[in-house]
């Protein structure tokens, strides 16, 4: 009675409609239900449905356990850190992409700790953004839906150290970082590695690798850059062209130098000792508020030595001569930073270019090899007339240097009038959430030794502005103490 065959027959009738496909009720139920009995079809429906409900789900044959998706053997973050991670980095109140998130990722990487696997779903955005730092678990999680067609990134890859043996398997950002790092030590070798695998990379990766060659760019890079003129991707061709324009000794570079020299007005001042004075001469179309932007673009890639030589001055004298023109001083600071001339940069910062760092950090090729030296030269919060107008600038700084600043810089910042004014305003009008970006950046940029100073500095502000910061500082302490 009501065996599989009978059940199938009843199901077929029900599927197609019993009006035209009568249910074989009597046969299906061995005569226990008469087809002509009242509501016999409903009875058959109910019994058939109930029979199905007692079916057992399909069995599994058993066997070796599924390979865990995670092969990371690093220890998990301490248990008290887990709810703080969730609170900071997930949900509506969380932010997976601000300086605090990045600082947490850095701290986890330094401490050699991984996220708890059960927290990965809640921390999905954070994990995807910082997978390279968070380890094999995180990369496996971030790429869990990757298909073979996605290309090299469609595989799980993680290595504690990226080197010449494995760099081609790394994620794009890791590849570019490796090339930049190698260029600083061995520019020819780095270019050779890029040339070898260039053609098989997707366009965004090709552009990123080319941009990495900006480090220690020289005339020997010209043949490779020329060969990219016919690349199929416009973004790649544009990147190559920009690099060519910066190559020293080229006609493009010479033309560029001639242009900027024509915009520098030189004069003499002083009675007893005649000193050179330099001022910029702006095109008529450049409005006053656009001058610094114009100058930064016009002078980009020009070598300081070439500029000084073109003006008939030593570099030191060039710097002194520009002292009266804040825009020119700022431009010289940008050039000094690009050329890693930190002594010069420090002098320029102290003498009119205190805000030049704001432009430096927004440049795509900003990547100082010695962050501490650069920051001690470029960052003088005590000389700032105000905090950066773009509230995200401090955060951008952390995004590019990915480490804490030297204690001295943070101490200068916390006692700087510009900072105190920002905090005062924030305390008076917490409804606007002003100062939140700067506070988040401060938490990320402050070294562990100054975290209590930071707490003290923020203590008077409303909880709505500081809750996230305090939680972050506690979390960073927890991770580092583990």
């Amino acid at each position, binding site marked *: 009675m009501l065996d599989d065959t009978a059940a199938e027959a009843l199901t077929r009738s029900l*599927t197609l409609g019993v009006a035209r496909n009568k249910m074989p009720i009597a046969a299906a139920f061995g005569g226990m239900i008469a087809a002509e009995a009242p509501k016999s079809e*409903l009875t058959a*429906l*109910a019994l058939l*449905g*109930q029979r199905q*409900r007692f079916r057992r789900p399909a069995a599994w044959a058993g066997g070796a*356990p599924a390979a865990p998706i995670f092969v990371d053997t690093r220890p998990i973050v301490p248990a008290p850190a887990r709810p703080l991670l969730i609170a900071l980095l997930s949900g509506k109140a969380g932010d997976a992409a601000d300086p605090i998130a990045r600082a947490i990722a850095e701290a986890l990487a330094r401490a050699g700790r991984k996220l708890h696997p059960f927290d990965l779903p809640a921390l999905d955005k954070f994990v995807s953004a910082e997978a390279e730092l968070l380890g094999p678990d995180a990369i496996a999680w971030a790429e869990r839906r990757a298909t073979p067609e996605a290309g090299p990134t469609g595989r799980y890859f993680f290595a504690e150290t990226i080197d010449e043996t494995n760099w081609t398997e790394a994620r794009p950002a890791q590849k570019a970082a490796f090339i930049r790092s190698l260029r600083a030590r061995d520019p020819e070798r780095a270019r050779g590695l890029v040339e070898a695998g260039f053609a098989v990379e997707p366009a965004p990766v090709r552009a990123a690798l080319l941009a990495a060659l900006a480090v220690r760019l020289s005339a020997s890079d010209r043949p490779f850059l020329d060969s990219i003129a016919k690349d199929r991707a416009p973004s790649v061709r544009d990147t190559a062209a920009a690099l060519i324009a910066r190559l020293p000794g080229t006609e493009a570079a010479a033309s560029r130098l001639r242009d900027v020299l024509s915009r520098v007005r030189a004069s003499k001042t002083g009675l007893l000792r005649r000193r050179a004075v330099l001022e910029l001469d702006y095109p008529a179309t450049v409005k006053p508020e656009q001058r610094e932007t114009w100058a930064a673009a016009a002078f980009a890639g020009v070598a300081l030595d070439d500029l000084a030589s073109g003006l008939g001055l030593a570099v030191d004298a060039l710097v002194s001569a520009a002292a009266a023109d804040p825009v020119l001083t700022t431009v010289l600071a940008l050039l000094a930073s690009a050329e890693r001339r930190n002594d010069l940069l420090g002098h320029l910062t102290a003498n009119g270019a205190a805000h030049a760092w704001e432009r430096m950090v927004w440049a795509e090729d900003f990547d100082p090899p010695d962050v501490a030296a650069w920051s001690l030269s470029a960052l003088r919060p005590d000389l700032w007339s105000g905090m950066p107008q773009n509230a995200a600038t401090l955060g951008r700084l952390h995004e590019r240097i990915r480490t804490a600043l030297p204690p001295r810089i943070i101490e200068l910042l916390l006692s700087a009038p510009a900072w105190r004014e920002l905090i005062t305003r924030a305390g008076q009008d917490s409804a606007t959430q002003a100062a939140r970006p700067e506070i988040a950046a401060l938490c990320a940029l402050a070294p562990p030794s100054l975290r209590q100073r930071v707490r003290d500095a923020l203590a008077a502000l409303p909880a709505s502005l500081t809750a996230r910061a305090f939680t972050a500082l506690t979390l960073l302490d927890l991770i580092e103490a583990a």
Partner: protein
Amino acid sequence: MNLTLAKLEELAPDQGSLDAARKLLKAKWPAAAGDGAGLVWGECQGSGSQPYRVVLAEQDLGYKCTCPSRKFPCKHVLALMWMRVEGRAFATEDRPVWVAEWLGRRRGPGSARPAAEAPRAKLDAALAVDAAEPEPADPKAEARAAVQRERNQAEREASILAGLDDLDRWLEDQMERGLAAFPSIAAEQSRTLARRLVDAKATGLAARVEQLPPALFAVPEAERVDFLIETLGMLHLMAAAYRRRESLPAALRADIRAAVGAAPTRDAVLEAAEAVRIRDRWLVLATVNEVQPDKLRRIETWLGRSSQGEGPRFAVLIDFMPVSLGTVKNTYSVGEAFEAELVYYPSGAPLRGIIAQQFGSAARADRWTAPAGDVAAALDRYDAALAARPWLGDWPLAISGGAVHRRGDGFALSMRDGGSALPIGVGDPDTVLPLLGLDGIDAFGLWNGRDFALKFAETPLGRWVG
């Protein structure tokens, strides 16, 4: 209930409420006092002429405030809780009349529902005046009321039976048309029938019919006909059982009446001499907080017993709130445990319960150990429950020492050496992915005959909550 700041954060409906409560910490609270046995109360001046009266039962976090806020708990209650967390001392006094009135009207501990469930006017009146003298009994009035009650009952039964006839006709229409055609008309057809059943006072059946379309479309297309056979067949089963209820065993009769829409009152359940009562330590294994199609918020708290004694192993507490009350959070959190006596609603397979009395406060529990048993044993228990209550819905299953593995595009829970595998139904597969490869999982979830909604697991990596 050990009040902590963390618990306070859990209970607060939003950040604004916590911020407002913090401001009230500095406000004057005349008449703030407690009875020294877990009950505290106070008055807080609002914008009106009369201060708001706030009372809190610390043991199970029941509370009441006379302010008009639609947030639960309101800032006044949160502030009172906060003061307790901070250890602020309260003078010990006798309970004022308004506090005693509130206690008397409470439906037992654990029923920490917002008092807006009761019509506001009645509660305000109770707080504002002293208790009135009870009126002397009038036998004739009582007799008239009894007759009226019987008449109402008879009308109600007739209405339900008429609704069941409409249900059967509707089912016959679907069968004639063919179940393959049903999905395209499911929403409209279900809506029409649900309205009819509501009018017929068969509200339990109406709720099942309203949930039919979304449940249908959650099933893979290839399985929808089978789903409809089971679901529509169950509706007729329930109708037939209701018609024959007088010939059913008492527990099953109570079951079908509740399922169709005539559930016993909480008082009746608590007072029933034959009710299944279990005192044990209960662990909160899952909570559900969702809005039903009928605009009621359904709050479920799934509990598991700590001991291996006789009787049901699990229970579910169910409360309903109008959506208009706003955000209402579960009183208990997953992972908390408390000792209590539960009374079960009468049923062939007891599951829904009420807390008759709670002993002590809830606290975070250590590792949970599932009752010994593999998937096959759990399904045996399901089959027994299904046989005892043929219209069974979600049923709790616990598996000891299982493992999650991939199955097709999804996952399943089974034993390491094979056997029955429970397909895991998940809204978001990402939440289950981290369980892959972990062995020796003690798992709890809800089985509906097709999918296993994994809710809670103890694993080598610690506790997982779905």
